[in-house]
């Protein structure tokens, strides 16, 4: 489903909420606008909506924190004492200290920023560079020994930097790391059986932990993603339900609006109580036709609902051969449906009663809206409409009917 249609429907639902608020009766003049925040937040921010995705994300954060702690513990508790203890043995102590410093800095960076972002690949290069520096600083006979401290630590950096890239990335990282160490062993001519076995044992022990953590992270990632999808689907379902409920309410409202006036007319016509030849009956029918048109127009998504609904009323009159002019002036605030109906109702009754010409005007200001009709119609019945003030004026063969709404404040 496209974003647009969801947006439109949501807007509808929001508007419907505003109607409900406005309909509560506090003020007829309540102007649309922001939906009730309590209603909306209740819909979108329930624990159920955050649910399993939120839990998995929390565990993932915990796992990451644990990895950061392990890395620091490894650097400070294992590597640093080893470097100090072997200070005399290394080919270059500086190389070891530089490598340690760089790795420490990377660890600090990872502790501060959960997502390395565009620094991921430069950091990986730095990590491998430091490992190479540390490795080449170790004398050949100590390549497979505690003195080569970077071997056991490097995997944790792989996890920190590649946590979200899947288990494959971590395995490649560890593979490259092992290959570099093996290569160095061969290069320095120490590839004897004891050294190889030593490397293998160290590799299995250390990598085992690291791969296990990597797997856990991958699983948590998957759960989090699945849960997010489920949560989204759930939310869409709830939105769809809300929309359906609102549409149903709209339909019922419309039916109720029609049944008050249109159905009695139809019943009268069917039973023969009303004579279609009678002018008054014909006008009643025309009014109902205009109301129906307006009712259908109320459901449309348009920029200016008042003018749109008024156009529906004008259309009915034009179909009866009345020449209608419309002129609009001033800026109007947005109006509730009930106010719009009250404003157009007197105009509607006058328009369908017009003999040949009518002029419709809409005048708006910041706190008042007037819909007015001048037509060559017989004096229209006084239309009662809540929340608006209706005035009639008759002069010679013309009537002037005006409905005015004022903001209440």
């Amino acid at each position, binding site marked *: 489903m496209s974003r647009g249609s969801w947006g439109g429907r949501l807007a509808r639902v929001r508007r419907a909420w505003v109607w409900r608020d406005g309909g509560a009766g506090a003020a007829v003049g309540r102007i649309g606008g922001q939906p009730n925040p309590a209603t909306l937040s209740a819909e979108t921010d329930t624990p159920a909506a955050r649910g399993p995705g939120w839990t998995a994300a929390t565990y993932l954060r915990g796992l990451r924190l644990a990895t950061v702690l392990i890395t620091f513990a490894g650097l400070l508790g294992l590597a640093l004492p080893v470097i100090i203890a072997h200070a005399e043995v290394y080919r270059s102590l500086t190389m070891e200290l530089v490598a340690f410093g760089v790795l420490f800095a990377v660890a600090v960076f990872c502790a501060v920023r959960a997502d390395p972002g565009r620094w991921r690949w430069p950091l990986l290069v730095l990590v491998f560079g430091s490992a190479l520096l540390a490795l080449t600083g170790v004398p050949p006979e100590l390549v497979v020994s505690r003195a080569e401290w970077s071997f056991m630590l490097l995997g944790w950096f792989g996890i920190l930097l590649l946590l979200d890239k899947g288990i494959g990335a971590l395995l490649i990282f560890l593979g490259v790391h092992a290959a570099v160490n093996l290569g160095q062993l061969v290069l320095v001519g120490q590839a004897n059986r004891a050294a190889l076995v030593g490397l293998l044992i160290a590799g299995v022990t250390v990598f085992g932990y690291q791969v296990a953590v990597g797997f856990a992270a991958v699983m948590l990632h998957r759960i989090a993603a699945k849960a997010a999808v489920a949560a989204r689907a759930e939310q869409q379902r709830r939105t769809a339900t809300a929309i359906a409920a609102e549409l149903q309410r709209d339909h019922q409202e419309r039916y109720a609006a029609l049944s008050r006036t249109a159905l009695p007319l139809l019943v009268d016509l069917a039973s023969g109580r009303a004579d279609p030849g009678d002018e008054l009956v014909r006008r009643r029918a025309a009014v109902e036709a205009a109301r129906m048109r307006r009712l259908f127009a109320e459901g449309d998504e348009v920029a200016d609902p008042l003018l749109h609904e008024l156009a529906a009323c004008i259309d009915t009159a034009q179909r009866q051969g009345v020449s209608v002019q419309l*002129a609009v002036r001033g*800026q109007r605030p947005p109006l509730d449906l009930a106010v719009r109906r009250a404003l157009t109702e007197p105009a509607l009754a006058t328009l369908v009663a017009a003999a040949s010409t009518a*002029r419709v*005007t809409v005048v708006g200001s910041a706190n008042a809206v007037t819909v007015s009709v001048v037509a060559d119609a017989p004096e229209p019945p006084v239309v009662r409409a809540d929340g608006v003030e209706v005035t009639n*004026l008759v*002069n010679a063969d013309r009537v002037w009917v*005006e409905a005015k709404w004022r903001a209440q404040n």
Partner: protein
Amino acid sequence: MASAELITAVVVDDHPAIVAGVQAWCSLADPPIEVLATGPTVAEAWTEPGASADVVVLDLHLGNTTQPGYGDLTRLVDAGRQVIVYTMRDDAETALTCVDIGAFAYLTKAEGQTHLVAAIRAAANNLPYTPPALAGAIGTDTRGNRPRLAPREQDVLVEWFTCESKEMVAQKLGLSARTVNTYIDRVRIKYANVGRAAPTKAALVARAIQDGLVALEDL
């Protein structure tokens, strides 16, 4: 340009039916208004015989342009011509812009039959004339530089726009028809007195003061 003399006009409109209609209204008027020249471009108003006409009836959209011809209007006004903008366009912003430039009146084509002849006559005599469409624009004007109107003046303008009958406005607001006219004219003078200076505006204000419609201290 005294009222006793024959009033002359030039009609600039690219629609032959409009030109024919305006000519017919002018010749049927009592006393008649002589249309000296008609044509689809503003050149008619600058060359004889149109150049000596008392009043220019100007369509704001000549040819296929989508932009209103404010430039033509400005040049005519600055040359001291009395211009009545006569247009299809019924929107407040255009109406107010034309008045600011110094157009004598702004008339929509729907209002032509009722108001154009009277507007031409008023223009020739430097008397204010405010048809309903223009009244509606002024009555709902919210721009920062607008003249200050009394609430009653604003009511009268909006009601005049709404019902197009000064009699009904008077009836509704409990005023005499004369008072309604005075309010409408006074507002028009207030608008002529603000903004860009133009000889036509000055003439309108001068005539209003001379006739006692407004006092100098009111402006």
